[in-house]
């Protein structure tokens, strides 16, 4: 203890000026609705660092690295092309089936990976959650955002397919950006809800893979939504992914947008997002105690 400095000898060199109001008040929280926007601003760089970390470590110790981002949708496309395109002969409305499938598998792969990693993110960060404070919501959001990099890696493959099949680009193409945003928001809504529920009910981890599979078959990934009979269409478009995928295809292949189903998706996603954040805020106070 030779270097120890006795506090008796230490004059207070500068006494910081204290704010009149407390910076933080820690007490039992009653409602989940209060949102610490100030916190988010303070911790915006942490969001960036967590995304950066997730991207950085994702393909460490893998042989093929980022190629996995392409391999996943590509091989699913090949299988779909064989089963749905060749065997079942699904009508893809004049678009070559491989391109038709890939255009939906691209957002779908992003979405399913994003909600899987996001859903497991809080449980996987137990060691951090029990040690440091920061807005917990950053964790599942960062997990989703990191998946956008994979989407970007797999995207050129889509362009290559379009060139190969001589599909021209139209101005519709620019609608991809709001559609990607919408997909991301949906992934955040679902991922956040799953991550919070997973803390208490580890069933989520086991249920996720096959729920995702069921969801995919309920979405027009392998088939066009036109195969759904008209009287079921409204019910069908309550799946927010329906509007999104139809939107992607319209944007890529220069078709007319179905604004109604895109609108339904947008509203549903907004509502889901609000509910998920509320649910998350409500349960997050117990994370450190039970995770």
């Amino acid at each position, binding site marked *: *203890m*030779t*270097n*120890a*400095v*006795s*506090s*008796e000898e*230490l*004059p*207070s*060199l*500068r*006494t*910081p000026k*204290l*704010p009149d109001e*407390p*910076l*933080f*008040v*820690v*007490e*039992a*929280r009653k409602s989940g609705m209060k949102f610490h926007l100030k916190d988010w601003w*303070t*911790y915006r*760089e*942490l969001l*960036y*660092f*967590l995304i*950066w*970390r997730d991207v*950085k*470590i994702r393909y*460490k*110790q893998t042989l093929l690295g980022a190629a996995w981002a392409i391999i996943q949708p590509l091989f699913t496309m090949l299988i779909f092309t064989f089963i749905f395109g060749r065997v079942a002969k699904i009508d893809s409305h004049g678009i070559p089936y491989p391109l038709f499938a890939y255009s939906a598998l691209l957002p779908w792969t992003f979405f399913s990976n994003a909600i899987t990693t996001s859903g497991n993110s809080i449980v996987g960060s137990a*060691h*951090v*959650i*029990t*040690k*440091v*404070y*920061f807005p917990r919501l950053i964790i599942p959001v960062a997990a989703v955002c990191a998946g956008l990099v994979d989407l970007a890696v797999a995207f050129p493959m889509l362009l290559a397919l379009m060139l190969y099949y001589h599909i021209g680009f139209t101005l519709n193409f620019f609608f991809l950006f709001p559609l990607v945003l919408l997909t991301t928001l949906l992934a955040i809504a679902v991922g956040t809800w799953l991550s919070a529920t997973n*803390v*208490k*009910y*580890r*069933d989520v981890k086991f249920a996720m893979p096959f729920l995702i599979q069921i969801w995919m078959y309920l979405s027009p990934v392998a088939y066009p939504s036109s195969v759904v009979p008209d009287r079921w269409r409204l019910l069908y478009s309550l799946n927010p992914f329906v509007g999104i995928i139809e939107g992607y295809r319209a944007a890529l292949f220069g078709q007319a947008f179905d604004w109604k189903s895109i609108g339904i998706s947008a509203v549903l996603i907004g509502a889901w997002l609000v509910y998920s954040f509320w649910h998350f805020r409500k349960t997050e*106070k117990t994370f*450190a*105690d*039970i*995770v």
Partner: protein
Amino acid sequence: MKPIIRVTNVGKQYRIGARQEAYTNLREVVTASLSAPFKRLRRRGRRDAETVWALKNVSFEVRPGEVIGIIGRNGAGKSTLLKILSRITEPTTGRAELYGRIGSLLEVGTGFHPELTGRENIFLNGAVLGMKRSEIARKFDEIVAFAEIDQVLDTPVKHYSSGMYMRLAFAVAAHLEPEILLVDEVLAVGDAEFQAKCLGKMGAVASEGRTVLFVSHNMAAVQSLCRRVIWLERGEVAEEGQAVSVVQNYLGKGSASATEKVWDDPHTAPGDDKVRLHRVRVRPVTGSASDPINIRTPIVMEFDYWNFEPGARLNLSLHLYNEQGITVFNALPLREPVWHGKPFPTGLFRSSCYVPGDLLNNGLHSVLLLVVKDQGTVIFSLNDALVFNVRDSIERRGDWHGKWEGAVRPDLKWKTEYLDAEVTTP
């Protein structure tokens, strides 16, 4: 002066067994809710027993620039208090007002990722602890120099030795510049030189006018760093005041250790009308009860007792427990040469039990004393008859700075031989 931290009536309640039933699954919830009405009937009136208050009615104030020590036994609520102040968990009752940014060294190395390099982890960990990127970049060289890891800066931290890992982790955390710094036992790790460096850094932090809350079992460090100390006991503030006097009371009152106890009155001393204790103590073989004991020290436990019943055949039985409540050993004087098995006349006896050095592990130990008659009947028992701390010894550490596992820590004989120069390949 206005306080920078004001804690009012803070309490934290945990469900007992929350660890085991930490996460549930849906099936359990369904079955539980079906049987819940019946359970509620059965458990009526016992609901309080299912919860435990880790903290109860804790109130105190800290003025800016103060260095406050928080002491208490394991489970006294020290870490829970820091967790509430650092907003990791919410209190069940009361409130804490913080008039400054909080930085915590609750456990260093939080957010380190083994696959990332030292350089990358500095930025990641800094961000997790609440630093801005520009702030980390500005202090980067200082952190690297403090941690002494410039050679391995671009190596993934999974290849670091535990010493390097700890140094890096502490270095990042120590360069935080919050107005309030919470420190929990970080000094328990690392070699003596590094510990001294850490203490120096904390002193420097304090001298800059920042507020430090320091949780530790290291009373020497607490006394040298803190002017004021809060002593927690079973979740409540047992005493608060000048560091020297609180630490003395804490050590003296048997909360931390009880290396010597004396009962002068043969009517009220622990025991019964057959046998009563007069004095118990534990000391190094070559020293007194106030001398420190480390893992290398041979010690002796002495028990003085009055025998009131002529002709009783007495023997003692000692159960030694460690901090985790594990029985380290049970010792009986079966081969004691003079009195064992013989009838004891009335009068004062002393039985001493010698524990060789290089046997016990470091940490707090407690002795359950049983007085046995005719080698079968327990006359009486005394829990925590002795409580003593066995300190670590640097000479027995090697390069390992983490916790040394095991109920005991014997210095065993080893031999390595060079058998053959030929390497045969099958």
